[in-house]
Protein backbone atom coordinates (compact mmCIF):
# COMPACT_ATOMS: atom_id res chain seq x y z
CA UNK A 1 0.00 0.00 0.00
CA UNK A 2 1.82 3.13 -1.09
CA UNK A 3 1.69 5.79 1.62
CA UNK A 4 2.13 9.54 1.24
CA UNK A 5 3.27 11.23 4.43
CA UNK A 6 2.51 14.92 4.92
CA UNK A 7 4.89 16.27 7.55
CA UNK A 8 5.70 19.66 9.05
CA UNK A 9 9.27 18.51 9.76
CA UNK A 10 10.32 16.58 6.65
CA UNK A 11 13.85 16.08 7.94
CA UNK A 12 12.50 13.51 10.37
CA UNK A 13 10.83 11.14 7.88
CA UNK A 14 13.74 11.72 5.48
CA UNK A 15 16.18 10.60 8.13
CA UNK A 16 14.28 7.43 9.02
CA UNK A 17 13.67 6.30 5.46
CA UNK A 18 10.02 7.14 4.73
CA UNK A 19 9.72 6.76 0.94
CA UNK A 20 7.09 9.40 0.00
CA UNK A 21 7.10 12.70 1.86
CA UNK A 22 5.31 16.00 1.29
CA UNK A 23 5.91 19.14 3.32
CA UNK A 24 3.02 20.70 5.24
CA UNK A 25 2.76 24.30 6.39
CA UNK A 26 3.63 24.19 10.11
CA UNK A 27 3.43 21.96 13.17
CA UNK A 28 0.43 23.84 14.53
CA UNK A 29 -1.43 23.99 11.20
CA UNK A 30 -0.20 21.21 8.95
CA UNK A 31 -2.67 21.75 6.13
CA UNK A 32 -3.90 25.23 6.85
CA UNK A 33 -3.08 28.90 6.76
CA UNK A 34 -4.77 30.42 9.80
CA UNK A 35 -5.42 34.08 9.14
CA UNK A 36 -6.18 33.52 5.47
CA UNK A 37 -9.78 33.49 4.26
CA UNK A 38 -11.23 30.00 4.50
CA UNK A 39 -11.50 29.62 0.75
CA UNK A 40 -7.79 30.29 0.23
CA UNK A 41 -6.89 27.93 3.03
CA UNK A 42 -8.92 25.16 1.47
CA UNK A 43 -7.19 25.79 -1.86
CA UNK A 44 -3.81 25.53 -0.20
CA UNK A 45 -4.89 22.33 1.56
CA UNK A 46 -6.08 20.84 -1.68
CA UNK A 47 -2.79 21.66 -3.41
CA UNK A 48 -0.79 19.85 -0.73
CA UNK A 49 -3.14 16.84 -0.72
CA UNK A 50 -2.94 16.67 -4.52
CA UNK A 51 0.85 16.59 -4.26
CA UNK A 52 0.51 13.80 -1.72
CA UNK A 53 -1.76 11.84 -4.07
CA UNK A 54 0.71 12.38 -6.91
CA UNK A 55 3.43 10.62 -4.90
CA UNK A 56 1.26 7.49 -4.82
CA UNK A 57 1.53 7.06 -8.58
CA UNK A 58 5.26 7.89 -8.67
CA UNK A 59 8.05 5.37 -8.25
CA UNK A 60 10.63 6.34 -5.64
CA UNK A 61 14.05 5.06 -4.69
CA UNK A 62 14.84 5.87 -1.12
CA UNK A 63 13.30 8.64 0.97
CA UNK A 64 11.97 11.37 -1.33
CA UNK A 65 10.60 14.81 -0.49
CA UNK A 66 8.12 15.90 -3.16
CA UNK A 67 7.67 19.67 -3.59
Amino acid at each position, binding site marked *: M*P*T*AMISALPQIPLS*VGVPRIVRGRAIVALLGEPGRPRGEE*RQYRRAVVETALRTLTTAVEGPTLFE
Partner: protein
Amino acid sequence: MGAPIRVAHFMNQFFAGLGGQEAVNAPLEVRPGAVGPGKALEAAAGSHARVTVTLVAGDGWLNDHADEGTEAIVSALAAQRPDVLVTGPAFDSGVYGLNCARVGNAVATRLKLPVVSGMFPENPGVAAGRQRSLIVPTGRSAGAMPKAIAGMAALAVRVGGGDRPGSPEEAGYLPRGIRLNTVASRNGAERAVEMLVARLAGRPWATEIPLPAFEAVPSAAPLASLGTVRVGLLTTGGIVPRGNPDRIESRRATQWRRYPIEGLEEASAARFECIHGGFDGQYANEDPNRVIPIDVLRDLEREGAIGALVPSLWTTTGNAGPLDRARRFGEEIARDMSAAGVGAVVLTAT
Protein backbone atom coordinates in the same frame (compact mmCIF):
# COMPACT_ATOMS: atom_id res chain seq x y z
CA MET B 1 44.03 23.07 35.62
CA GLY B 2 44.05 26.69 34.54
CA ALA B 3 41.27 29.27 34.28
CA PRO B 4 37.68 28.01 34.16
CA ILE B 5 36.38 26.91 30.74
CA ARG B 6 34.05 29.49 29.22
CA VAL B 7 30.77 27.83 28.28
CA ALA B 8 28.03 29.20 26.03
CA HIS B 9 24.66 27.54 26.61
CA PHE B 10 21.76 27.28 24.15
CA MET B 11 18.28 26.40 25.40
CA ASN B 12 14.60 26.77 24.57
CA GLN B 13 11.87 28.93 26.04
CA PHE B 14 10.68 26.30 28.50
CA PHE B 15 13.99 25.70 30.25
CA ALA B 16 14.72 29.42 30.29
CA GLY B 17 11.55 29.91 32.33
CA LEU B 18 9.54 31.79 29.68
CA GLY B 19 6.73 29.25 29.63
CA GLY B 20 5.71 26.30 27.51
CA GLN B 21 3.70 26.31 24.30
CA GLU B 22 2.57 29.90 24.89
CA ALA B 23 6.18 31.11 24.59
CA VAL B 24 7.12 28.80 21.75
CA ASN B 25 7.60 31.73 19.36
CA ALA B 26 9.94 33.72 21.60
CA PRO B 27 12.68 35.20 19.42
CA LEU B 28 16.38 34.82 20.21
CA GLU B 29 17.60 36.42 23.44
CA VAL B 30 21.21 36.59 24.48
CA ARG B 31 21.58 36.70 28.25
CA PRO B 32 24.77 37.04 30.30
CA GLY B 33 25.65 34.21 32.63
CA ALA B 34 23.84 30.99 33.43
CA VAL B 35 20.08 30.48 33.17
CA GLY B 36 17.96 27.58 34.47
CA PRO B 37 19.77 24.27 33.83
CA GLY B 38 22.93 26.29 33.10
CA LYS B 39 23.20 26.91 36.81
CA ALA B 40 23.15 23.17 37.44
CA LEU B 41 25.77 22.80 34.71
CA GLU B 42 28.04 25.29 36.49
CA ALA B 43 27.50 23.58 39.82
CA ALA B 44 28.35 20.20 38.29
CA ALA B 45 31.50 21.58 36.68
CA GLY B 46 32.63 23.28 39.89
CA SER B 47 35.51 25.66 39.42
CA HIS B 48 36.37 24.13 36.06
CA ALA B 49 33.74 26.02 34.04
CA ARG B 50 31.64 29.19 33.94
CA VAL B 51 28.59 29.74 31.76
CA THR B 52 29.40 33.16 30.34
CA VAL B 53 26.41 33.53 28.01
CA THR B 54 23.03 31.87 27.50
CA LEU B 55 21.18 31.92 24.18
CA VAL B 56 17.43 31.38 24.45
CA ALA B 57 15.14 30.82 21.48
CA GLY B 58 11.58 29.54 21.33
CA ASP B 59 11.29 26.12 19.69
CA GLY B 60 8.76 27.41 17.19
CA TRP B 61 10.65 30.62 16.43
CA LEU B 62 13.92 28.84 15.68
CA ASN B 63 12.14 26.18 13.64
CA ASP B 64 10.43 28.85 11.52
CA HIS B 65 13.48 31.15 11.27
CA ALA B 66 16.16 28.48 11.05
CA ASP B 67 18.66 30.29 8.83
CA GLU B 68 18.23 33.72 10.37
CA GLY B 69 18.25 32.28 13.87
CA THR B 70 21.35 30.13 13.54
CA GLU B 71 23.13 33.04 11.80
CA ALA B 72 22.34 35.29 14.77
CA ILE B 73 23.58 32.64 17.20
CA VAL B 74 26.81 32.12 15.26
CA SER B 75 27.41 35.89 15.24
CA ALA B 76 26.73 36.21 18.95
CA LEU B 77 29.15 33.40 19.73
CA ALA B 78 31.80 34.69 17.34
CA ALA B 79 31.83 37.84 19.46
CA GLN B 80 31.74 35.97 22.79
CA ARG B 81 34.45 33.44 21.88
CA PRO B 82 33.51 30.67 24.36
CA ASP B 83 35.57 27.49 24.69
CA VAL B 84 32.60 25.18 24.21
CA LEU B 85 28.89 25.35 23.35
CA VAL B 86 26.40 23.29 25.34
CA THR B 87 22.92 22.79 23.85
CA GLY B 88 19.89 21.43 25.72
CA PRO B 89 19.52 18.90 27.26
CA ALA B 90 16.50 18.30 25.01
CA PHE B 91 15.46 14.91 26.49
CA ASP B 92 12.81 13.48 24.15
CA SER B 93 11.49 16.72 22.71
CA GLY B 94 11.93 16.26 18.96
CA VAL B 95 11.55 19.91 17.94
CA TYR B 96 13.98 21.07 20.66
CA GLY B 97 16.43 18.29 19.80
CA LEU B 98 16.37 19.21 16.13
CA ASN B 99 17.00 22.84 17.03
CA CYS B 100 19.93 21.84 19.26
CA ALA B 101 21.30 19.81 16.36
CA ARG B 102 20.84 22.68 13.93
CA VAL B 103 22.60 25.16 16.24
CA GLY B 104 25.37 22.68 17.06
CA ASN B 105 26.00 21.91 13.39
CA ALA B 106 26.29 25.59 12.49
CA VAL B 107 28.54 26.49 15.41
CA ALA B 108 30.81 23.47 15.00
CA THR B 109 31.23 24.09 11.28
CA ARG B 110 31.48 27.87 11.22
CA LEU B 111 33.28 28.60 14.50
CA LYS B 112 35.11 25.27 14.93
CA LEU B 113 33.92 25.07 18.54
CA PRO B 114 33.31 21.79 20.32
CA VAL B 115 29.60 21.26 21.03
CA VAL B 116 28.12 19.09 23.78
CA SER B 117 24.44 18.21 24.01
CA GLY B 118 22.11 15.82 25.81
CA MET B 119 19.17 13.94 24.28
CA PHE B 120 17.12 10.81 24.68
CA PRO B 121 18.65 8.36 22.16
CA GLU B 122 15.46 8.19 20.04
CA ASN B 123 15.26 11.97 19.68
CA PRO B 124 15.43 12.83 15.95
CA GLY B 125 17.99 15.49 16.94
CA VAL B 126 20.46 12.66 17.50
CA ALA B 127 20.48 11.56 13.86
CA ALA B 128 20.58 15.19 12.76
CA GLY B 129 23.27 16.37 15.12
CA ARG B 130 25.52 13.59 16.33
CA GLN B 131 28.21 14.09 13.70
CA ARG B 132 29.03 17.56 15.01
CA SER B 133 27.79 17.54 18.60
CA LEU B 134 28.85 15.13 21.31
CA ILE B 135 25.44 14.00 22.51
CA VAL B 136 25.19 12.57 26.00
CA PRO B 137 22.32 10.04 26.19
CA THR B 138 19.65 11.09 28.67
CA GLY B 139 16.34 9.82 30.02
CA ARG B 140 13.07 10.90 28.43
CA SER B 141 12.14 13.91 30.53
CA ALA B 142 13.44 16.64 32.80
CA GLY B 143 13.29 14.25 35.76
CA ALA B 144 16.54 12.92 34.32
CA MET B 145 18.18 16.37 34.48
CA PRO B 146 20.78 15.77 37.22
CA LYS B 147 22.33 12.76 35.54
CA ALA B 148 22.22 14.45 32.12
CA ILE B 149 23.87 17.60 33.43
CA ALA B 150 26.59 15.63 35.21
CA GLY B 151 27.52 13.81 32.00
CA MET B 152 27.35 16.97 29.89
CA ALA B 153 29.40 19.02 32.34
CA ALA B 154 32.21 16.47 32.48
CA LEU B 155 32.36 16.21 28.70
CA ALA B 156 32.15 19.99 28.22
CA VAL B 157 35.06 20.57 30.59
CA ARG B 158 37.11 17.94 28.80
CA VAL B 159 36.59 19.20 25.25
CA GLY B 160 36.38 22.87 26.26
CA GLY B 161 39.85 22.48 27.71
CA GLY B 162 41.13 21.33 24.34
CA ASP B 163 41.25 17.61 25.07
CA ARG B 164 39.91 15.01 22.65
CA PRO B 165 36.59 13.49 23.69
CA GLY B 166 37.79 9.91 23.85
CA SER B 167 35.68 6.96 22.81
CA PRO B 168 31.87 7.14 23.18
CA GLU B 169 31.80 4.30 25.68
CA GLU B 170 34.43 5.83 27.88
CA ALA B 171 33.35 9.47 27.70
CA GLY B 172 29.60 8.80 27.82
CA TYR B 173 28.23 10.12 24.53
CA LEU B 174 26.31 8.54 21.65
CA PRO B 175 28.50 6.97 18.94
CA ARG B 176 28.94 9.20 15.91
CA GLY B 177 29.61 6.53 13.37
CA ILE B 178 33.20 7.65 13.11
CA ARG B 179 35.64 4.88 12.37
CA LEU B 180 39.15 5.27 13.68
CA ASN B 181 41.77 3.02 12.19
CA THR B 182 43.57 0.96 14.78
CA VAL B 183 45.93 -1.95 14.41
CA ALA B 184 44.60 -5.17 15.90
CA SER B 185 46.91 -7.83 17.21
CA ARG B 186 45.10 -10.56 15.29
CA ASN B 187 43.76 -10.50 11.75
CA GLY B 188 40.11 -10.21 10.74
CA ALA B 189 39.73 -13.92 10.00
CA GLU B 190 40.85 -14.87 13.51
CA ARG B 191 38.62 -12.25 15.12
CA ALA B 192 35.60 -13.32 13.06
CA VAL B 193 36.03 -16.98 13.95
CA GLU B 194 36.44 -16.11 17.60
CA MET B 195 33.22 -14.07 17.44
CA LEU B 196 31.36 -16.96 15.79
CA VAL B 197 32.62 -19.50 18.31
CA ALA B 198 31.55 -17.26 21.21
CA ARG B 199 28.13 -16.75 19.67
CA LEU B 200 27.58 -20.47 19.06
CA ALA B 201 28.69 -21.25 22.59
CA GLY B 202 26.26 -18.68 23.99
CA ARG B 203 29.10 -16.57 25.40
CA PRO B 204 29.00 -12.76 25.21
CA TRP B 205 30.27 -11.36 21.92
CA ALA B 206 30.29 -7.93 20.28
CA THR B 207 30.10 -6.97 16.65
CA GLU B 208 32.80 -4.69 15.30
CA ILE B 209 30.33 -3.07 12.93
CA PRO B 210 26.98 -2.23 14.55
CA LEU B 211 24.24 -1.80 11.96
CA PRO B 212 22.17 1.43 12.02
CA ALA B 213 19.05 1.32 14.15
CA PHE B 214 16.55 2.35 11.47
CA GLU B 215 16.04 -0.35 8.90
CA ALA B 216 15.38 0.83 5.35
CA VAL B 217 11.67 0.94 4.55
CA PRO B 218 11.16 -0.57 1.12
CA SER B 219 8.87 1.66 -0.88
CA ALA B 220 5.58 0.22 -2.09
CA ALA B 221 5.21 0.15 -5.86
CA PRO B 222 3.37 3.15 -7.27
CA LEU B 223 -0.21 2.72 -8.48
CA ALA B 224 -0.99 3.27 -12.14
CA SER B 225 -3.77 5.71 -11.30
CA LEU B 226 -5.99 6.62 -8.36
CA GLY B 227 -9.34 6.75 -10.12
CA THR B 228 -10.46 3.40 -8.70
CA VAL B 229 -8.35 3.40 -5.56
CA ARG B 230 -9.82 3.46 -2.06
CA VAL B 231 -7.73 5.95 -0.10
CA GLY B 232 -7.35 5.57 3.66
CA LEU B 233 -6.68 8.56 5.93
CA LEU B 234 -4.32 8.08 8.86
CA THR B 235 -3.04 10.71 11.25
CA THR B 236 -0.54 10.89 14.10
CA GLY B 237 -1.81 14.37 14.89
CA GLY B 238 -3.98 13.20 17.75
CA ILE B 239 -7.34 14.09 16.16
CA VAL B 240 -10.14 12.20 17.89
CA PRO B 241 -13.93 12.45 18.24
CA ARG B 242 -14.87 15.20 20.71
CA GLY B 243 -14.58 13.89 24.23
CA ASN B 244 -11.79 11.46 23.29
CA PRO B 245 -14.05 8.47 24.04
CA ASP B 246 -11.23 5.94 24.14
CA ARG B 247 -8.91 8.19 26.11
CA ILE B 248 -6.07 8.16 23.63
CA GLU B 249 -3.11 9.67 25.44
CA SER B 250 -1.66 13.04 24.44
CA ARG B 251 1.85 11.66 24.69
CA ARG B 252 3.33 8.17 24.42
CA ALA B 253 -0.01 6.87 23.22
CA THR B 254 -0.66 3.22 24.02
CA GLN B 255 -3.32 2.80 21.36
CA TRP B 256 -4.45 3.72 17.88
CA ARG B 257 -8.12 3.79 16.91
CA ARG B 258 -10.34 3.71 13.88
CA TYR B 259 -13.38 5.99 13.85
CA PRO B 260 -16.18 6.18 11.27
CA ILE B 261 -16.26 9.24 9.04
CA GLU B 262 -19.12 7.94 6.90
CA GLY B 263 -21.22 10.72 5.42
CA LEU B 264 -18.96 13.50 6.68
CA GLU B 265 -18.18 16.14 4.08
CA GLU B 266 -15.49 17.70 6.27
CA ALA B 267 -13.86 17.44 9.69
CA SER B 268 -15.84 19.85 11.81
CA ALA B 269 -14.82 21.37 15.13
CA ALA B 270 -18.10 20.11 16.54
CA ARG B 271 -17.17 16.51 15.92
CA PHE B 272 -13.39 16.39 16.42
CA GLU B 273 -10.75 17.70 18.75
CA CYS B 274 -6.98 17.64 18.93
CA ILE B 275 -5.48 15.92 21.95
CA HIS B 276 -1.84 15.92 20.82
CA GLY B 277 0.29 17.15 23.72
CA GLY B 278 3.30 18.19 21.66
CA PHE B 279 1.99 21.35 20.07
CA ASP B 280 -0.64 24.05 20.62
CA GLY B 281 -3.85 22.52 19.24
CA GLN B 282 -5.67 25.84 18.85
CA TYR B 283 -5.64 25.88 15.04
CA ALA B 284 -6.36 22.18 14.76
CA ASN B 285 -9.33 22.55 17.12
CA GLU B 286 -10.65 25.53 15.15
CA ASP B 287 -10.64 23.54 11.96
CA PRO B 288 -9.65 19.87 12.16
CA ASN B 289 -9.41 19.71 8.36
CA ARG B 290 -6.02 21.34 8.92
CA VAL B 291 -4.83 17.96 10.21
CA ILE B 292 -7.36 15.50 8.73
CA PRO B 293 -8.19 16.96 5.31
CA ILE B 294 -11.56 15.26 4.92
CA ASP B 295 -12.98 18.32 3.13
CA VAL B 296 -10.59 18.29 0.18
CA LEU B 297 -10.48 14.49 0.02
CA ARG B 298 -14.25 14.48 -0.39
CA ASP B 299 -13.96 17.06 -3.18
CA LEU B 300 -11.39 14.88 -4.89
CA GLU B 301 -13.58 11.82 -4.43
CA ARG B 302 -16.57 13.61 -5.96
CA GLU B 303 -14.47 14.69 -8.92
CA GLY B 304 -13.23 11.15 -9.50
CA ALA B 305 -9.57 11.97 -8.76
CA ILE B 306 -9.68 9.10 -6.26
CA GLY B 307 -11.99 6.09 -6.29
CA ALA B 308 -13.18 6.67 -2.74
CA LEU B 309 -12.20 8.03 0.65
CA VAL B 310 -12.57 5.02 2.92
CA PRO B 311 -15.20 5.99 5.55
CA SER B 312 -12.80 5.55 8.49
CA LEU B 313 -10.20 7.70 10.19
CA TRP B 314 -7.21 5.89 11.64
CA THR B 315 -5.67 7.96 14.38
CA THR B 316 -3.20 8.11 17.23
CA THR B 317 -0.90 10.62 18.90
CA GLY B 318 2.61 10.61 17.55
CA ASN B 319 4.24 12.44 20.46
CA ALA B 320 7.37 10.89 21.96
CA GLY B 321 6.07 7.48 21.08
CA PRO B 322 8.53 4.67 21.75
CA LEU B 323 9.88 3.35 18.47
CA ASP B 324 9.04 -0.29 19.03
CA ARG B 325 5.44 0.63 19.80
CA ALA B 326 5.28 2.86 16.72
CA ARG B 327 6.54 -0.04 14.62
CA ARG B 328 3.87 -2.33 16.05
CA PHE B 329 1.13 0.28 15.48
CA GLY B 330 2.27 0.60 11.87
CA GLU B 331 1.98 -3.13 11.30
CA GLU B 332 -1.41 -3.36 12.99
CA ILE B 333 -2.82 -0.34 11.16
CA ALA B 334 -1.53 -1.65 7.84
CA ARG B 335 -3.34 -4.96 8.42
CA ASP B 336 -6.53 -3.18 9.47
CA MET B 337 -6.43 -0.85 6.46
CA SER B 338 -5.77 -3.75 4.14
CA ALA B 339 -8.78 -5.60 5.50
CA ALA B 340 -10.85 -2.46 4.86
CA GLY B 341 -9.84 -2.47 1.22
CA VAL B 342 -7.50 0.50 1.43
CA GLY B 343 -5.27 0.69 -1.65
CA ALA B 344 -3.24 3.79 -0.76
CA VAL B 345 -2.72 5.90 2.35
CA VAL B 346 -2.47 9.58 3.15
CA LEU B 347 -0.70 9.99 6.49
CA THR B 348 -0.70 13.39 8.16
CA ALA B 349 1.95 13.99 10.81
CA THR B 350 2.44 17.21 12.70
